[in-house]
Every structure is written in structure tokens, then in C-alpha cells.
């Protein structure tokens, strides 16, 4: 079994509306994948299921080499297992400094008592500095996250994700609200990250997806419509019909 994440015949409905309908989907351990689809195709719900926010009505979600079921775990346990999620709207802790935000995200014991007796070390301080450097926030490290610009918050959140060192990274519309240069930077970062782990990008923006140069999965009405390279799927008549044809 080479897949890191295996989503198998998953269905979920809200008040009779089938948000995810018999969805099956695999991600390898080292892979960059873009998930596209029109509004209501079930992209966000798919991420909610993988991260434990929503429990599906049917199906399996298996994780890792030993194929553990993610459905029995809560959000925190899934995150600790190595699934990182970046929200569409940047969510950082605005009341706290950039370094505190990053320190919190650092891979370490997450239990209350572990955290209580955790003390910053030279390594942890260096790692925070390094992460800040990487996302271009070295200068802002002691500022409150709430004082950062929108783009900087995006970067801080990405920095926090890196600090978590996830094996699977779920990224929800990273390009939203970014300048062209920032998009450029984001693309590079995502591609570099995908060299050592699995990255799933949910995106609207076709140009951005094209830049990622990766395998694309098209969702429609809660199930996979097509899969392959962007060029491949854009030639698929079904895809053109439901998505591009509009």
C-alpha cells in the first residue's frame, strides 16, 4: 500500500443534501495534488472529513502505513498524526506575537502537562527564528499577529503549518487575496514542500493550478469526475460541461 491517505466510498449528507457522494480518493506519501471543482462540489467538506471536523455517514478514511482509520480520531489526534490544514481565511492568534504563534505550532508534546513544563531551548528558539526567516517575518517576530497585513498573516499561517511538520498538508485556496508576486512565492513554496510530503491544494483559480504542474482531481457533486494532468482533465468533456463550460 503506497498511499498515505486513502478515502474509500465516503458519503455525507446535510439535511438530505448529499455533499459528498461515494467519494474515493488516494494520495501518495510524496505528492502534490490539486483538487478543483465548482462551488458546492464538496471540496471543503472533503477537507472537513479528512481533518475530523465532519463525520461521514458511510465509508472509510485510512491513514499511513498501518492504515489507521481517521474516523475514530478527533481533530487534535488527526493533527498530531500528521495532517496539517490551512484555512482559506488566515486564522492566526491575533492577540499573540508571531513567535508565540510559531512556538505553539512547533512539533512537541501537545498534552496539557507536557506543555506546562515545556521550556524554550536553544533549538526551539533557533527553529522559530528559522521559520520566521523562511516566511519572511523575521522583522515582525515580536509584533502581535493582529498587526500584520493580510498577506503576512497568510505567510504566518503557512509558517505555523511548516512548524507542525505534517506528512499531509491540506491547503484551502492559498492564492485568495494574494498579489501576483506572493502567488509566485506560494507556488514555489508548495512545490518545494511537496518534495518531502503530500500536499493537497484546493483551488478555484485555474492559472494558479496550472503553475503547480501537478496531478489534478476534479470534484463534482461530491464525487470524483476526472483525474489526471490539468491538460488531460480540461479535455474531458464532462469537466468542460460542468466546470469550464460555464
Amino acid at each position, binding site marked *: 500500500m503506497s498511499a498515505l491517505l486513502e478515502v474509500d466510498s465516503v458519503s455525507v449528507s446535510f439535511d438530505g443534501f448529499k455533499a459528498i457522494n461515494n467519494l474515493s480518493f488516494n494520495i501518495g506519501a510524496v505528492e502534490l495534488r490539486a483538487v478543483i471543482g465548482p462551488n458546492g462540489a464538496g471540496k471543503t467538506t472533503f477537507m472537513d472529513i479528512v481533518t475530523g471536523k465532519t463525520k461521514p455517514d458511510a465509508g472509510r478514511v485510512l491513514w499511513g502505513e498501518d492504515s489507521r482509520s481517521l474516523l475514530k480520531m478527533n481533530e*487534535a489526534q488527526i493533527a498530531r498524526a500528521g495532517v*496539517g*490544514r490551512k484555512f482559506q481565511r488566515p*486564522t492566526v*492568534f491575533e492577540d499573540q506575537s508571531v513567535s508565540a504563534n510559531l512556538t505553539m505550532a512547533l512539533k512537541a508534546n501537545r*498534552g*496539557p502537562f507536557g*506543555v506546562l513544563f515545556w521550556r524554550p*531551548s536553544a533549538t526551539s528558539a533557533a527553529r522559530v527564528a528559522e521559520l520566521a526567516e523562511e516566511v519572511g517575518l523575521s522583522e515582525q517576530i515580536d509584533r502581535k499577529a493582529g498587526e500584520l497585513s493580510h498577506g503576512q498573516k497568510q505567510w504566518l499561517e503557512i509558517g*505555523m503549518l511548516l512548524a507542525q511538520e505534517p506528512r499531509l498538508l491540506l491547503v484551502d485556496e492559498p492564492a485568495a487575496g494574494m498579489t501576483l508576486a506572493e502567488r509566485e512565492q506560494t507556488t514555489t513554496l508548495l512545490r518545494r514542500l511537496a518534495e518531502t510530503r503530500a500536499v493537497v491544494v484546493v483551488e478555484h483559480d485555474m492559472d494558479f493550478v496550472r503553475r503547480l504542474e501537478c496531478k489534478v482531481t476534479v470534484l463534482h457533486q461530491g464525487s470524483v469526475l476526472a483525474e489526471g494532468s490539468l491538460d488531460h482533465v480540461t479535455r474531458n468533456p464532462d469537466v468542460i460541461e460542468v466546470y469550464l463550460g460555464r
Partner: protein
Amino acid sequence: MTRQPFILRNPSILIVLAVLAAFTVAVTLMSAAYGNGAIPTSMVKVLGKTLCLALAAVAMDLVWGYLGILSLGQMAFFALGGYMVGQWLMYARTETIVAASLAQNPIPATPLELQEAVANQIFGVVGSSDLPLVWTFAHSLTLQLILVVAVPGILALVFGWLAFRSRVNGVYLSILTQAMTLALALWLFQNDSGFRGNNGLSGLQNIPGLEGRDQATLSVWFLWASAAALAVFYVLAAWLVSGKFGSVIRAIRDDETRVRFLGYPVEGFKLVVFTLAAMITAIAGALYYPQAGIINPAELMPIASIYLAVWVAIGGRGRLYGAIIGAVVVSLLSSWFTGGRAPDIRLPGYVVHWVDWWQVALGLSFVLVTLFAPKGIAGIFDRLSGLRAPRRAAPRKQEVKA
């Protein structure tokens, strides 16, 4: 890497400790027992009790200001602490009295007779003469002191586990904590609850074993104990909120979901803080009621806990010293105004008696604070210190690189 002890990194802690020490010394020097008697013993007791309330407010600030749970049941833990220590105080003292009176008999009393006589003395008022099961450990100070933290701790743990597990939060959780307090109060109001119904426990100001000391001396000792407890737990609370733990709980307050996606077991953190705060509150209560002398179920009606929240809000939540300021200022002002010592205001055609109008003024001022000064009194301090000292970004940077 060298790292300053966290107390030195937080000057506010030193200031609070210094003020507390100065206050304690000053009161001692003006007390009847150890000084010139400028402060009457009753006032020493009021001040000692105020320190206990301040400690309860600090715990409330941990739960509300830092963790974001508006618990409207904190005073239940406070009163439980009082009840637990009160059981020993009342039992031991009654035992002494009863033993003395039984010694008048020609035949020495058996242990069973002694216990029955004690039970009759304590529970005669609710028409019972058996010692209830909950008084099993009342003869032992050590065991009751353990219960002071154990009973509220376990209650908080169980309640918190149930509530947090089902992800009840926000106003729902507040209402639930209020319901818990009300349930406990109603339970204690019953005559057969084992805690003497609405009579409560009384005579707690008489400390068994210290009969030789007068109330003037005891009041100062309790003031010291209260000040010491406040100091110790203030430092503990400050330590708790200063490091990464503090970061995480504030993060939970601001965005619980996001913290979950970082992999932190949010419920575990909530449970730790909620339980710890309950225990601290219980200790405050255990020190408060021997100074008050009496405890009854009215003490844990929901309104008391809401007042605690009011003090913290007026003092400034999310600031530990804010909680102390709020508790001290508002509770002392309240007792001054409702004690009938405040001068009446004579308006043309109407005389404002503060006894009647203080509650109205407090309610309205509370609305005003919520509307116009959400950070409370401590917020004003912050603004002042913010004017004096600019950002301390630079020194921290060096620290990171060192």
C-alpha cells in the same frame, strides 16, 4: 542560553507581591493584636476576607480571562471549600464542648456516646441526631483539608469532562455552570443534605486548639494566611499563563477550532485549568469562612458567582492583577455603601440613601464598564504604562539569538 526567572520577566508580579506585603505589614501594625489598634478587629477580618475574594477572582480570571469560559459557578467551589473546612471546625469545637459537659457525669462517656452527643448537638437544629455519612472524616483536620481541594476538584473534573467533551461552549456553558451551582445550592438547602440545611455551619471563627487566642490575634493570623495564599497562587497563576501553556489557553479562548487543528487536545487544557481554578477557589473559600464565622447555602446561589465575574470584568480580565483590583475595589465599596456608612446625597425633594441605591449604581456602572471600558480598570493601567514604555521588541530579539 541564559533565561531570566519568569518573575523578573514580569515586573507586574513583583509589584503585586510588594503591594501585598506592604499592605499586610501595614494592617498588622495597625491591628489591635500586634499594633496600635487603629484598625478594629472586625475591619481586619473584612480585609482578610477581601484577600480571599481577590484570590477567588484570580482563579476566575484564569478561567474566564485566559481560557475564555465564563463560569457562573465559581462560588460553588468557594463555598464547598468553606463547607469542608467548616465541618472540621464545627465538629472539633462541638466535640470539645460536648466532652467537657459529658465529663460532668460520674461515668466516663464511650466514644459512641460522645459521637452521638456531638451529632445531636450539631444536627438537633434540623431534627436529626445521626452523624451523616458526609461527616465521616470531620474529626480529622488533615482529611478535611484534603477534601477542601479534592471535593471541588473532583466536581470540576466531572462536570468539566461532561461539558467540554460534548463541546458545550459560550453562553450555553455559562448557563450550565450556573445550573450546576443552583443545583448544589438547592441540594444544600435541604435539611437532610447532611449540611444542616439553610442553617449552614456556624461558629467557624472559633478555632479548636487555639481557644487561648482572642479573635484580634486570630484575625491577623488569618490575614497573613490569606495574604500568603494570594501571593503563592498569584505567582502560580502568573507562571501558568506566562509560558507556552498560557499561549495555548489564550489561543483556545480566541479560536478553539484552530487550536484543535494544531493538534492540541483542547478539552484536556480546559479541564486542567477549570479544575485547578476550582481548587484555588476552594482554598480561598476555606480561608474565607473561618473569618466570616458562618456559611450557609445562600452563599452559593448563582448571583454570588455572577458578582465574582462582575469584579473581574470591572478590574480587567486577562490581567491577573486586574482581577485583584476589581475584587478589592468593588467588594470594599459594596460593603461601604451597603453598610450604611456612606453619606446620603440630599437632592431637592429626594434623599438618596446609598443602602437603597448602591445596587442600582453598581448595576449601571457595570453596564457602563462593559460598554466603554471592556478592559476594566487594568486597561487604564495598561494605557498609562503603554505611554511610558514603548515596545520592547529589541531586547527580545537578542534573547532569541543568544
